[in-house]
């Protein structure tokens, strides 16, 4: 796997873990303001981030497969 994509996957994994930890640590804040924040930003941000992580993994696999076919 290419080092940049491997780094990107690691960074994105950490970023999502940090975001998840922050959300869990902030569970005490559970009023309407928080629900709105979750609904409008944190949940979509997390979902998009997870989709990006999957896209990075898929691309890394596909590109590694393509590189293995190269004849130099």
């Amino acid at each position, binding site marked *: 796997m290419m080092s940049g994509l491997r780094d*990107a996957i690691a960074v994105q994994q950490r970023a999502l873990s940090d975001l998840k930890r922050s959300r869990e640590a902030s569970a005490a804040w559970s009023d309407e*303001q928080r629900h*709105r924040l979750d609904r409008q930003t944190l949940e979509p941000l997390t979902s998009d981030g997870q989709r*990006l992580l999957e896209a*990075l993994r898929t691309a890394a696999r*596909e590109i590694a497969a*393509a590189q293995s076919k190269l004849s130099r």
Partner: protein
Amino acid sequence: MSGDVIHARVSAVKEIAHGVASYGRSLTAALASARADLNGAAAEFQAAVADSQRRVAAADRRTEAPAAALARCREGCEPLQRQLAEAKVAQDEARRRHERNRQAQAQFDRAAAELISSMGTARTAAEGMVPSARQHIQDYAEILTSYLKTGV
């Protein structure tokens, strides 16, 4: 709201603010790293395809001389036939390699295009949501600060 509740929420606001800011920075770093890698890989595939194309052209040229000589040959032509046969084997191999490289490049191009699209979507979404989350957090922090100062 009691003092404990307000302090818990202040702590929560700080946690979320930290998480969102950290996420925004990390996402930017991840996208930059991925983009640099894609650019490097694209150059690698282009170089491999260009090189195999040059090898095909060279192999084509190496068949021309024995083919022309064989066309003129009237007797004792076996060495030329062998030379041409060997050149054609090398030519076929060069063409197979070039075709494999082209297919590999096409596979890379598809994977890269899909990833670039996903990266664009993630970037656009984050550009909208991170500032929006910050604004929510700031608004809430101001409400809490007001509670702490005035109790209202």
